[in-house]
């Protein structure tokens, strides 16, 4: 569907993107994930045509669109702040792209009614000015405006970043539902790893203008290929040489283990039994509780599902164990 081949973008002496190769499949929800300044928005703007790559090609369904003007690409975009036109009503905002394409008035009305129904905007909301809408409604207008012209692809640039935590989760679910409903190929940009893991079919993790790893959410999380990805995605414990000394594990590599893979008082057959460690503090999160453990000088964290009663007391000793296959190991100096 979308083929990014060896894309590089330079701004003067600064390389924003280097050698990017991605193939996005039709109907896929594809996420570009990375910290601020990693080049994800630059890559998205290269796909939509706002930035011309220094080298490489952008193809859609086999057609090279690298030098095609923005307005001729037929790629919808939802901006971080939605970029709704403040001088227009909701209806006029959605109709803008259709009017530009000189669609007959009757057809415009029909298309808008249809899209409004699908994104659940009612007639009263359609006559309002955009500043009279809530954050969630504004997001739906932005999506409707991008989709009404029937683009082949839709790009979303951190559309949830300006919202509060609760609304973000609610709209995240709505967004996924809409994507399924429309079946449109979607490229999503975010720095929020939880958002990326829950929404995406596949994720490309970017760092310093390069792809660190490209894969399904579970691959990215459980089999992080680089130390950067392993640290960027989810909470993780770094196992110190002092900790590893008590095991037969190699000490020449940097070793990590996810919090939920480290067990207290729950050894299994294939586990390495590390021994006793002391609970030093706990953090209550509602659904689960996070405990900090002192393993003879190495500080570690574990999580336990909240069953209603505190599982461990501060100062209590627990028996640590883990499955060696769940460890993530990297050559030293791999951290980008």
């Amino acid at each position: 569907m979308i083929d990014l081949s060896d894309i590089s973008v330079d701004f003067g002496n600064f390389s924003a993107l280097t050698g990017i190769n991605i193939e996005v499949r039709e109907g896929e929800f594809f996420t570009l994930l990375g910290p601020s300044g990693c080049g994800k928005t630059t890559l998205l703007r290269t796909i939509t045509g706002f930035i011309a790559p220094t080298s490489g090609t952008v193809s859609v369904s086999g057609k090279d669109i690298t030098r095609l003007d923005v307005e001729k690409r037929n790629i919808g975009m939802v901006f971080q702040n939605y970029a709704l036109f403040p001088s227009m009503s909701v209806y006029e905002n959605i109709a803008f792209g259709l009017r530009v394409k000189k669609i007959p008035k009757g057809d415009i009305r029909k298309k808008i009614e249809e899209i409004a129904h699908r994104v659940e905007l009612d007639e009263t909301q359609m006559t309002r000015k955009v500043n009279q809408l809530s954050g969630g409604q504004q997001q739906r207008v932005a999506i409707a405006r991008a989709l009404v012209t029937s683009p082949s692809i839709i790009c979303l640039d951190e559309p949830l970043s300006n919202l509060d935590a609760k609304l973000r989760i609610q709209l995240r679910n709505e967004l996924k539902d809409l994507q399924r409903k429309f079946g449109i190929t979607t490229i999503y940009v975010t720095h929020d790893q939880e958002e990326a893991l829950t929404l995406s079919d596949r994720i490309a993790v970017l760092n310093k203008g390069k792809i660190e790893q490209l894969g399904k959410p579970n691959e990215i999380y459980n089999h992080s290929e680089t130390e950067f990805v392993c640290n960027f995605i989810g909470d993780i414990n770094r196992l110190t040489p002092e900790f590893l000394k008590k095991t037969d594990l190699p000490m020449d590599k940097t070793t990590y283990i996810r919090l939920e893979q480290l067990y207290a008082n729950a050894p299994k057959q294939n586990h390495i039994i590390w021994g006793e460690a002391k609970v030093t503090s706990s953090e209550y999160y509602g659904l689960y509780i996070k405990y900090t453990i002192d393993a003879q000088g190495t500080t570690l964290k574990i999580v336990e599902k909240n069953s209603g009663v505190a599982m461990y007391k501060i100062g209590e000793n627990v028996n640590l164990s883990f499955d060696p296959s769940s460890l993530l190991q990297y050559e030293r100096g791999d951290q980008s």
Partner: protein
Amino acid sequence: MSLTKKNITQATIFTGLVWFIVVFLIAPNITTVTDVFWQDGEFTMRAIERMRNAPRAMQALRNSFIIAPVLSVTVGFVGVTLVLITDYFKVFGAKILRLGYMTTLLYSGIVLVSGYVFLYGNNGFVTNILVQIFPNLEQDWFSGFWAVLFVMTFAATGNHMIFIRNALRSVDYQTIEVARNLGASSFTILWRVVLPVLLPSLTAVTVFTFLGGLSAIAAPLLVGGPDFRAITPLILQLSRLQGSRDIAALLALILGVSSILLIAVFSLLEKRGHYLSVSKVKTDLVKQKIRNPVVNVFVHIYAYVLFLIYISPVVMIVLFSFTDSRTIARREFNFSALTLDNYIAALTQNFSPFMTSAIYSFLAATGVAVLMLLVCRIITKHKGKASTAIEYAFMIPWLLPTVLIAWGLVATFNRPQWFMFNQPLANTTTIMVLGYLIICIPFTLRMTRASFFSIDDTLEDAAKNLGAKPMYAFLRIIIPVILPSVLAIFALNFNRLLAEFDMSVFMYNPLSVPLGVEIENLTMAGDSGGDSAELVFVYTVIIMAISALVLYLVYGRNSKIGID
């Protein structure tokens, strides 16, 4: 193909702008410099020598350089006290007082000076009362340095009522409360906590008061009398004498260099920084009670005396504009003399100056709005050395006094110039409109630029992403967003130009006299016993009504420009 077309359009616009800058902003100043230092084909200092030997010129220079600093002090004192009376201290009737103090925003320049002449001038309303009390007082007592200082002091406090008032409002009340909590007296709080916050705005306003005093023309012309010559009126006088043009040009140049130096000093001062509130939750200022009863009475008397000074010309002009010429000549108000004849006459028989100025102002305000839209679009969209150079070039008129700009334009275009396609512009509508347009450029550029920068870049990107071409996106998305600001800027420029005098008096065509010049002519004639005052009054009332409407639309509810 489209890329080539785009490049050609860009190159054409760029060439056009460079031509405008060179021809209208740079060439006139070069002409002024060469008029002074280049005579008979060689470099010469003769103009300086001639000026030094001309007592009138040296006296004018001395007078202007004396009145400018004195005026800065008097305006600063009166202006700050006005703001403290209306917005800092609890003074009875503060809202009414504020309206009175703000009347100078409705009428200024030549119109305001003519109002003061009606009250204090020869046979003036106040003069007649004073002569009855002091029979030995001369009828033309209101003349010379002190009269100019008096008129200009009360004419120039409008900026304080806008900018110093805004600065005062930015004072965090918690800082006053904490000072009191730490034991500070009312005076210490005012001196050590409040006034330092006003200082940056006060410095800016004072610099412009100084420049206003230096290049004053209306007040010295109308109330300066034979004893008080100032630079700009002398430049005007000398510019009409063939043999003294080099001295006039030199005086204009001295004004220009002084302005540039002063603005440079101001910029340095400005870089020292502003006092910004660091409070997390800023609280609004609460008016302070004057605890000392004697000081309280004194402040009230002072406030209402100032109120009378500000309001009396306005009241008199409005009242007498509805009376006949005999009543005006006698300065004795009589209800039986009330009539609408003056208005009917002004709007039917003597409407020509008004129409002339309205047309000039409309054309110039429209022209500068369109030109600055184009310039600001380039500045914001194509950041680079070329666009920065264009921006700086268009700020040239900000550095120069109006008289220097006027002089340069007249001197350059009173003969055919190849860069103007050999078209002489002297005495044409074009040069008047150009002059008006040029003096409006700095304000328009800064305000339009601010409007452009407040637009979210993604709006235009979103339009393009939806298939709109750049020009369509600009016209359909950007223009509607900035249109309210552009219209507000247009209205303020139109309002400013309607009774413009400083530029007009140098460039007007005797066949189409603009309003400012007409008011000056009529005031001069009225002062010598003519019956033309009623026209001045009618024009003044109409100008005040238009100004009030413009200011309400721009700064009133749903303000689009963040000055007030």
